[in-house]
């Protein structure tokens, strides 16, 4: 299906849109180093860190928390409940 032209235009109120900001929490010692969050985050927010956690693996580290779009994929795909994302309460951000 070909994308209709009108959808490609920027919405009129785009300058007033508020994008929620994310707060990413890592329970580092619970991570077993499977790499799912790093690999499958659509915005590539994570990267393998160099530190070693209590389990002897490299947990992820957040590269840029601002890129997170709160899709919740990492929260649900993590087999060990070692990462979760919540909306930052004071989030007020104008879309650029």
């Amino acid at each position, binding site marked *: 299906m070909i994308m209709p032209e009108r959808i490609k235009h920027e919405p009129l109120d785009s300058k007033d849109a508020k994008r929620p900001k994310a707060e990413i929490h890592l329970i580092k010692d619970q991570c077993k180093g*499977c790499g*799912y969050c790093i690999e499958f985050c659509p915005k590539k927010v994570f990267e393998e860190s160099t530190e070693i956690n209590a389990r002897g693996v490299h947990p992820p580290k957040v590269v840029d928390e601002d890129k997170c779009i709160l899709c919740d994929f990492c*929260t649900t795909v993590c*087999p060990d*409940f070692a990462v979760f994302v919540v909306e930052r309460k004071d989030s007020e951000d104008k879309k650029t």
Partner: protein
Amino acid sequence: MTQQTLEHPYSKYLRQGMIPHIWCPGCGNGVVLNAFVHAVDELQLDLDKLVVVSGIGCIGRIAGYTNTDSFHTTHGRALAFASGVKLANPELEVVVVSGDGDLFAIGGNHFIHAARRNMGIKVICANNFNYGMTGGQQGPTTPLDSVTTTSPYGNIEHPFNLVHLAAASGAVYVARWTTLHVRRLTQSIKKALQKKGFCFIEAISACPEIYGRYNNMRSGLEIMEWFKRASVVESFSDPAKAEITPDRIAVGEFVDVEKLSYEKLLHEKISKINEKAMEQVG
């Protein structure tokens, strides 16, 4: 990035002190648990009325991790046990979470009959293509030519097409997703929890330490890559054509129908007979 000061939002669904669980890094069972708990959270189910029944296998340990009434049965008998639970107290939401071998080899008979009766039990099958807990033997869903510890020269048995089996046995809701499709898996579990009758969800699950290692997919990531490459969403296509091959894993919702559940029919019948019996007694 913030330091961890908050508790994980789903920690209230998990038994504290039991997490971290015993499953390997990248194990699909962890993802199944996560999706299940996610679905329960979205529905805000009454945890006092939820009963999780599991069979024997790595996935069998899941009953010990959920913060609900739970029971870990003998190998293959989870569905028969769950039938007794549901009939004795139809208000309970009974969920059976078990593995491919437990549900379809030793438990095969109980599966087809529970489905046939349309018992109001929700079944989540974590299908990782082998018997993981005991070291990686072949099972009823092991793909042809796969190497396992009891098929060292390659598996010569055709595997089950679980979606077809469940549909043919009479399940009212049948879905298959992989542990990569976490959102859709969660939605399917939600749908099943709200539906009356026998619901079956096959969660194709990664077993990196054993099945993956024997079959050229040494890490969870490689298995998930396979899921990504081979999955095609074919909702409501013919379940008979939904076999899993190295090149094609058909996922989606295959069956979603309405049919009177066993416990509804049973309790209706009991009320009718009870009325009659009361009349006779006077």
